[in-house]
């Protein structure tokens, strides 16, 4: 690998998620030559460069519309999107909800480290209330999104969440997302010890992973919990599944109609 050393800090969780994506692709037996990885800008988005597929590192926030173009231009390709929490829900928020709404067959994997890692620790829309960032030195007063709820509300047909602690589950969830014919969204919680953990006294990477293991609660258990019990907990696993026609298949019908002169 002449691409090593990679750019990530020691203890960064991005490598874990990247490996999980590769394993999920393998698990689904996707053709390496027919699989495209598209990413935005951020530490997490640099993962595309280390993966042996056709890979596209786009601009900040724009991975989903680029990926939409690839998929529509050649629907036989498997298209997987890698994005960070700022990339996906701040600058790319509009593309994210419209991607989900259209239900193009993409699998979007959000690397959620709760912070802008690449630019050195500014608050993101997924920085929890009260947590510190370089741009929120007194603690964030901006309410955070729940990215999974957002994806569900916008029309994603598969929504799941896992953490870098639960690697096997993460692989399975991404694989299931790839199998879903439609817009699949998998949020993966991943530690950024350097730009987020240190400032918020969350300990080193191992301590952050342990914290995730304590936060994560399978959805079924979470649903049975009281409001108080839910405090500080995050539901994981498959959070939502629905049926809706996939965009490329629908457009193929438009092409048929137009060919028959129905316009």
């Amino acid at each position, binding site marked *: 690998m002449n*691409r090593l050393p990679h750019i990530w800090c020691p203890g960064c969780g991005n490598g874990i998620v990247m490996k999980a994506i590769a394993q999920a692709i393998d698990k689904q037996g996707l053709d*390496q*030559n*027919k699989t*495209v990885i*598209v990413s935005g800008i951020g530490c997490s988005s640099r993962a*595309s*460069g280390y993966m*042996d*597929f*056709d*890979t*596209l*590192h*786009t*601009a900040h926030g*724009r991975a989903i*519309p*680029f*990926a*939409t*173009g*690839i*998929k*529509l*231009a*050649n629907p*036989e*390709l498997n298209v997987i999107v890698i994005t960070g929490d700022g990339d996906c829900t701040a600058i790319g928020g*509009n*593309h994210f909800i*419209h991607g989900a709404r259209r239900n193009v067959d993409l699998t979007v994997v959000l690397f959620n480290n709760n912070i802008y890692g690449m630019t050195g620790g500014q608050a993101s829309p997924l920085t929890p209330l009260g947590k510190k960032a370089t741009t929120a030195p007194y603690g964030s007063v901006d309410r955070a999104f729940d990215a999974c709820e957002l994806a569900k509300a916008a029309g994603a047909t598969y929504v799941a969440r896992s953490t870098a602690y639960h690697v096997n589950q993460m692989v399975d969830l991404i694989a299931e997302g790839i199998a879903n014919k439609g817009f699949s969204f998998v949020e993966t919680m991943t530690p950024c010890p350097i730009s987020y953990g240190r400032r918020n006294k969350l300990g080193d990477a191992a301590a952050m992973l342990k914290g995730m293991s304590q936060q994560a609660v399978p959805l079924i258990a979470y649903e049975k919990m009281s409001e108080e019990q839910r405090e500080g907990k995050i539901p994981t696993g498959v959070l939502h599944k629905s049926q809706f026609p996939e965009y490329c298949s629908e*457009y193929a019908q*438009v*092409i048929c*109609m*137009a*060919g028959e*002169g129905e*316009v």
Partner: protein
Amino acid sequence: MSEARLMQGNEACAEGALAAGVRFFGGYPITPSTEIAEHMAGALPALGGTFIQMEDEIAGIAVVLGAALAGKKVLTATSGPGFSLKQELIGYGCIAEIPAVIVNVQRTGPSTGQPTSPSQGDIMQARWGTHGDHPMIALSPWTVRESFDVAVKAVNYAERFRTPVIILLDEVVGHMRERVVLPRPEEIDVYPRRKPVVTEGEPYKPFKPMDDLVPSPADFGTGHRYHVTGLFHDETGFPSGNAKLTKDVTHRLHEKIMRAQDEITHYDEFFMEDAEIVVVAYGGTARTAYAGVEAARKKGVKVGMVRLMTIWPFADKIIKKIAAQAKAILVPEMNYGQLVLEVERVAAGQAKVVSLPKYDTEIFTPQEIVAAIEDLNAEVAK
């Protein structure tokens, strides 16, 4: 195909793009460009192509750049505010060497400005709108028929040089209807997607330049497996922070287009043999400028005209030539004076260069052009 039809400039532009092989359009509606999207929405699926209305203009250019990488010839169309939004990704297309055509049917700005009023205010934005150093090809037609031809050329240049190409329409040409006879398909030269070049026993180098300094990266999904990024990158496509590489790539990006400058510079000359005053005009303004020049000629003024189709790279050879021949150059534009700055730069004091700007939402009248020519004639005769 070859019968006479009554057609609008925007429609002719869309038809030209289709004739050149465009099979993917993504965009967002905005006056006065919307007819291009509407035309594509109907025409593309009938040709097996794809139209998609995106959530904004940034998504509009992102989706077409993605489709281009997956093998399609692509088009997006917009107007001033949307053109501003697309700028970051126009730069992405330059550095990642992705062929795409962006139509900007200009309207009066800045900002929402005068949405339905004609303008030529985006001349400099087309050249310098995205950040950093990069070359740009921009073409501006002056008739409905030429909107078709310019679209064909733009698609061909995008593919040949692997770069974004801009079509600058103005509201006059975009919305005007004229009788046109379009060429038959066999009369149109179409530049095909460049074929990937693989060297046995070497790792695949998608961004290795060919003899013409243009690389020929493979379409995604064809088994070559490589990386595309907006970061400076080596010939394999992988990012590099190397200073020499950055310098060499920047230079090559410019050179691949400037080497072909003569070929991609298109203009018309009228009444130039003995011209002492030359009007330099483009787009919709060139139409009234021509009427004005003709009328001034009839009055005995030795006036000629150069009509530019290629706006960028700037047609410096012909401007240098007329600066040596003429006493004065008049540059009417529907803006506060933009391309005149380039004319001044190239004329370098050899001829007097006079700006005739118009920014009151009205188009020029031939009378205004004649009056400006006569004033200038009187002035240089002194």
